């Protein structure tokens, strides 16, 4: 009787225990597929997303970004700011404090010396560190005590969160990499393939360009995590096969970056094995309006500020072009879950997102017609509007891409409804984005009236991105046609806002300025945003805790992933 009772209790507790408070390694084996295979585990020796994400299971930064683009302390106790005194008043130093009791996977303590070493490793003059721009303007990094590090910048740095923040700049172990500085870095195969880290997993076996096996890190700071004992990280193949292996056959638990046609994904989802998830960053598909005249008779002066555009310099024409577009339909046809309509060129992070322009979400063809009528553009032959002998006839170019050509055809039809005639042109992407100053077909040369492409910025701070539309940034012969101000927009008030933002230190003020700049551009209709394009991944229905994050590694919270029944 007694033994039977004990047995029942034992069985019961076995059944309940994992559900009640999961223990480390209780959920067994996790299988991840990335259709590009990592070639190293050292993110400082590779700029590739796949390496950075694979390494993020092992190596961790002081702070990282969450799914909303907000900074979260990771190995540090808190994120230093101006308000809490972690950032000095002159914006030249930032002081980080490590969490107490942190251990490397080999059991040795994590100290501020490791942080200082990481900086030295990446900025070594003979080493080719792929993340060195993270350490731009850093003059010195010094250990104040065993857990405190002070970073000193050569200039005032309103956004001092480059070094040691995010998956691109994790902390590496000084003891392991001590002999791997500079030119010796690539030769330390053992360290580069099996770095000792602080993350939830450690590398058991690394096969370059193929498979990585991980086991749970027994010295991880949270004794209950990670829930999985082993991780297999398979690389290679293509996006379609990866999607199929999670959504249709269930061979894998997680697949990364599935840029597939919406109906293809929807079809796979029908098998019922997995879930498609998406998350949005700053990538915006937009139409750029040329404010200068691209006529070929102007020769070398075409598309330069010397000759304003014959009709696109009229703001009501630009506004009408934007009003005639049905952004929701564009998303439905081109991107499905990987896109959402947007009226901002700066759609994220949340604090930078303006709501002042949301009226563009509704297509308004009668309104656009009324606007053009009021501006004096009268319908002429073939229904095309004219004023003073100038016809609203547009050459609309973009790169060769099935979705973009569909967008062109749709937008051409909408514009024809407001009396604008459109000629379409598509250019091979390698030429269009090639930037060759000898070619007339690059997006910088802009020998067309409007053009369409997508762009975004790295990280979460929009300062340099918003500075793209300064007068001096316009591509022109004097700059060898380089520059980011593709619409050739020029407004002194805008340039003044850029200068203000370069000096502003408080996050709130920076957000206000960024929103104001976004609104200025949007209300001038020099950029017509269409779709906010996101990242799409998929996970098995039995995998819980996944939070897709476009600001950091997708595997940023893998310690919280678990098996759900």
């Amino acid at each position, binding site marked *: 009787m007694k033994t039977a009772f004990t047995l029942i209790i034992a069985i019961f507790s076995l059944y309940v225990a994992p559900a009640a408070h999961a223990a480390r390694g209780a959920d067994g084996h996790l299988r991840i597929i990335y259709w590009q295979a990592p070639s190293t585990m050292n993110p400082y020796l590779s700029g590739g997303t796949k390496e950075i994400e694979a390494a993020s299971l092992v190596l961790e930064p002081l702070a990282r970004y969450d799914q909303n683009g907000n900074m979260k302390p990771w190995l540090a106790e808190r994120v230093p700011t101006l308000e809490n005194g972690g950032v000095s008043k002159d914006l030249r130093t930032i002081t980080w404090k490590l969490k107490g009791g942190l251990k490397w996977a080999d059991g040795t303590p994590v100290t501020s010396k490791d942080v200082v070493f990481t900086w030295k490793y990446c900025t070594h003059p003979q080493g080719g560190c792929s993340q060195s721009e993270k350490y731009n303007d850093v003059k010195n990094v010094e250990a104040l005590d065993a857990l405190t590090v002070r970073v000193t910048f050569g200039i005032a740095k309103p956004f001092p969160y480059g070094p040691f923040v995010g998956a691109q700049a994790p902390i590496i172990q000084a003891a392991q990499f001590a002999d791997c500085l500079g030119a010796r870095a690539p030769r330390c195969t053992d360290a580069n393939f099996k770095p000792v880290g602080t993350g939830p997993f450690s590398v058991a076996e690394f096969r370059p360009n193929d498979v990585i096996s991980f086991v749970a890190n027994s010295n991880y700071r949270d004794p209950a995590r990670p829930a999985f004992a082993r991780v297999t990280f398979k690389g290679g193949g293509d996006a379609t096969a990866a999607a199929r292996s999670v959504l249709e056959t269930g061979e894998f638990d997680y697949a990364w970056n599935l840029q597939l046609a919406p109906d293809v994904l929807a079809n796979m989802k029908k098998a019922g094995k997995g879930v498609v998830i998406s998350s949005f960053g700053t990538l915006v598909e937009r139409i750029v309006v040329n404010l200068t005249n691209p006529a070929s008779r102007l020769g070398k002066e075409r598309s330069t500020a010397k000759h304003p555009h014959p009709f696109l310099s009229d703001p009501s024409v630009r506004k009408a072009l934007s009003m005639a577009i049905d952004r929701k339909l564009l998303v439905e*046809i081109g991107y499905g879950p990987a896109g959402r309509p947007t009226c901002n060129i700066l759609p994220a992070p949340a604090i930078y997102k303006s709501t002042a322009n949301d009226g563009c979400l509704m297509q308004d063809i009668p309104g656009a017609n009324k606007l053009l009528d009021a501006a004096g553009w009268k319908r002429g032959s073939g229904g095309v509007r004219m004023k003073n002998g100038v016809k609203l006839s547009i050459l609309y170019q973009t790169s060769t891409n099935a979705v973009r050509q569909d967008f062109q055809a749709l937008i051409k039809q909408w514009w024809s409804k407001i009396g604008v005639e459109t*000629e379409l042109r598509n250019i*091979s992407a390698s*030429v269009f984005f090639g930037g060759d100053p000898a070619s007339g077909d690059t997006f910088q040369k802009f020998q067309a009236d409007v053009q369409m492409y997508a762009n975004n910025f790295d990280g979460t701070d929009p300062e340099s991105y918003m500075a793209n539309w300064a007068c001096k940034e316009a591509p022109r012969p004097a700059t060898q046609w380089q520059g980011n101000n593709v619409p050739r927009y020029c407004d002194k008030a805008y340039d003044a806002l850029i200068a203000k933002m370069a000096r502003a230190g408080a996050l709130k003020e920076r957000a206000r300025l960024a929103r104001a700049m976004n609104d200025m551009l949007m209300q001038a209709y020099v950029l017509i945003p269409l779709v906010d394009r996101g990242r799409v991944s998929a996970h098995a229905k039995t995998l819980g805790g996944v939070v897709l994050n476009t600001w950091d590694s997708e595997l940023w919270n893998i310690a919280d992933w678990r098996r759900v029944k």
Partner: protein
Amino acid sequence: MTSARRGTWAQFRTHRGAVIGAGILLIAAFAVLFGPHLWSIDPHLIDIRARNQGISFAHPLGADRLGRDTLARMLAGGRVSLAVAGAAMGLALSLGAVIGVASGYFRRLDGPLMRLTDLFLALPLLPLLLVIIALFRDALRAAFGPETGIFILIASVIGATSWMKTARIVRGEVLALKEREFVLASGALGAPAGRLIFRHILPGVISPIMISAALGVGDAIITESALSFLGLGFPPDFPTWGRLLYDSTDYLQQYPGRVLWPGLAISLTVLSINYVGDGLRDALDPRTRG
């Protein structure tokens, strides 16, 4: 009708494949010439509610991913594809035949002309096209409008870069033919070079010319679609058979019809021209004529 021509026609008629091929070609030509008048839906019209629709009364061949009518696009596309292929082939054939005959018949021209052919064969086609199009696109667009301008450009570019095989084949045939007794005999009787070429040599080399024409038409259709894909051809919303085929390949599994129709049209056309060429060869070749 002279008796010789009647003989040719009678001979052609006995070749069953050739007659069927000619029939299909005629139907295709009629369809693309008059079809758009009978089936009056605008091939550019986007009807988003009809997106991805299957075969129905309103859309006999279904509608594409933007709801454009496939039948209307097939008809409009066929017009462009056949016109481009015909014009380009006409140009390539005349160039190839003239150069081939001249270099085969006149020994002095042989060296320079064949080296010219080698030169053209060695030219990398794509960079050449890039340069040509970059140089002339704007000028032609301004002179003839975007569509006609590009048509002239594409047809002449394809024609001017695909005559070399014809020229080589014709030259070989001419070299063999001009040493034959009947040609030598005419020469000995004092026939001038022009008469020899037109009366005795050209009829002898008509079959290789026809065959390379048949193969060339298919090539021209495919080259045109490749150019459109690179953004060097017609505007992207301008339907051609090659473009329709290319655009639909992603949907092969879900909507096989969309690949099938343009694919079928291209292969049927090429096959028909092949058979017609075959029949013509039999009919024109003095040796096979009864």
